[in-house]
């Protein structure tokens, strides 16, 4: 700390001083680390030479992506169309018995975020997409480019402009997935509809709920028979697969960033809608560096390993704040083969801790109900 205090100076020279002059570099760096937003940090470089020299040392960065290209935006690009279909085929062959939902799955995973007017960054820096994008956007910069000068990043958060999965109006679908070289675990919370607490006609809610999902059966924690016949189960399978596809596609896109930023300790990929969260911690990032991911043969995403899934269901779940989830479903997913990593154990932790309130509470309530086990092949 300099011993010359600004008090005296400002008393003699009333003109304002550069506030940052008195702050040592580590403090200014702390300020930059609190900024996070990569665009603001980029602009800070142009403010003055000192800022420019410090910004590359920032270790906490948030990239807000304006525009994303999806594989299924294949209207303009011939290269994209094949892969989109192939991925669907592989899934439908997995679930031959459930062909019907895959028609809706097409809608679910077809992401149209092609319209990017002032896009300044996109997630995918593949060359094909580049050409494709040039027609729509003035310029674009991939996160890899944007992050090029940041050599010290430890905590990186990337935020997509929206979630990938289209869900029915009033419905709910959230997922959180942890990845290393492949999927470590995934938790999905869905509800066919959400009725907010400010709806005070509680009786009506109960009636609707009984009619749609529960068929008025007594709620003993089991799944009502109708769930298997009225499409309820199919819908949950679609949610699960869609979420896994979205998660594994996100994971695939992160590869170049992970390989270029060796100091990364935490990587989070979220979306503005709060639909999906993909997390990788230090160990998981290290695992991916040592053992590259296996890509799915069909499309640009990480192969999802064979999975064990546990499913909990409640036709009507009323949260303490009064919010009601109809057809509430929680799915906890882990690879069937998971060596070394501890099995189950503190189940409540990773399942219930996956979501922010009030959804964490919903997950904790659902876990107490009867558990249904399912298995899924690798895809």
């Amino acid at each position, binding site marked *: 700390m300099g011993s010359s205090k600004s008090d005296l100076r400002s008393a003699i020279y009333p003109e304002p001083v*550069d506030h940052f002059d*008195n*702050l040592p570099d580590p403090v200014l760096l702390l300020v930059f680390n609190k900024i996070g937003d990569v665009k603001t940090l980029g*602009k800070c470089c*142009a403010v*003055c030479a000192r800022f420019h020299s410090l910004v590359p040392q920032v270790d906490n960065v948030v990239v807000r992506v304006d525009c994303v290209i999806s594989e299924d935006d294949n209207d303009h690009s011939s290269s994209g169309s094949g892969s989109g279909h192939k991925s669907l085929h592989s899934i439908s062959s997995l679930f031959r018995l459930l062909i019907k939902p895959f028609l809706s799955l097409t809608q679910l995973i077809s992401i149209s975020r092609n319209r990017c007017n002032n896009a*300044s960054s996109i997630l995918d820096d593949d060359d094909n997409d580049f050409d494709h994008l040039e027609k729509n956007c003035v310029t674009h910069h991939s996160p890899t480019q944007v992050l090029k000068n940041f050599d010290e990043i430890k905590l990186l958060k990337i935020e997509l402009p929206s979630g990938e999965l289209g869900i029915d109006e009033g419905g709910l679908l959230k997922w959180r997935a942890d990845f290393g070289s492949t999927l470590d675990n995934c938790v999905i919370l869905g509800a066919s509809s959400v009725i907010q607490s400010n709806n005070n006609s509680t009786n009506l809610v109960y009636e609707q709920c009984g009619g749609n999902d529960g068929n008025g059966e007594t709620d003993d924690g089991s799944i009502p028979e109708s769930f298997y016949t009225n499409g309820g189960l199919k819908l949950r399978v679609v949610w699960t697969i869609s979420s896994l596809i979205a998660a594994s596609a996100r994971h695939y896109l992160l590869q170049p960033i992970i390989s270029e930023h060796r100091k990364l300790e935490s990587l989070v990929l979220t979306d503005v809608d709060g639909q999906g969260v993909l997390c990788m911690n230090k160990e998981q990032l290290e695992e991916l560096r040592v053992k590259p991911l296996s890509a799915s043969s069909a499309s640009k995403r990480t192969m999802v390993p064979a999975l064990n899934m546990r499913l909990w269901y409640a036709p009507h779940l009323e949260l303490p704040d009064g919010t009601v989830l109809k057809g509430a479903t929680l799915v906890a997913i882990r690879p069937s083969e998971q060596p070394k990593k501890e099995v189950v154990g503190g189940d409540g932790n990773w399942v219930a801790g996956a979501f922010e309130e009030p959804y964490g509470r919903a997950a904790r309530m659902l876990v107490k109900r009867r558990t249904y086990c399912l298995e899924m092949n690798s895809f």
Partner: protein
Amino acid sequence: MASSSSSSKTGLKKMLTLKSSDGDEFELEESIVIQCQTIKHMVEDGFSLIPLQNVDTKTLTKIIEYMKKHAEKTESNKEEIKNFNKEFVKGSFDDQFELVSAANYLHINGLMDLLCQSIADRINNKSVRAVREIFNISNDYTPDEEEKVRDEHKWAHEGGEFDESLD
């Protein structure tokens, strides 16, 4: 200023005296003051009168206000602390930067986080010109140099609206 009434620990409270660079002395409970790492180490070394040559009375008063409030922190008054923090960072820039320097010298991590976040929030989304004006930073680039730096970070300067306001 609210004083030690909140602390309900039994037994004798160990008191410490902090002395500002202006020579004013402040007597405080040790439990409050040890939020500050620098002082904590001095206490561990047996000091009970702690001279702070880098902190003037005005700044020290603010810092004591912060430490007292945060010593009251419990599970139930999170909202109250949040509001206190919000008010606390509302001072003038001169005061705030004095506080940052002092908090940095005293190693009060919570206060550093609070103040740096407050400064960061003022920078966020602002245009280059606005940042310079708000903080009185003189542009030490030649036009050519600035052009080069802007080009290096092109993505940061295009698209979207930037806040030119100075508040």
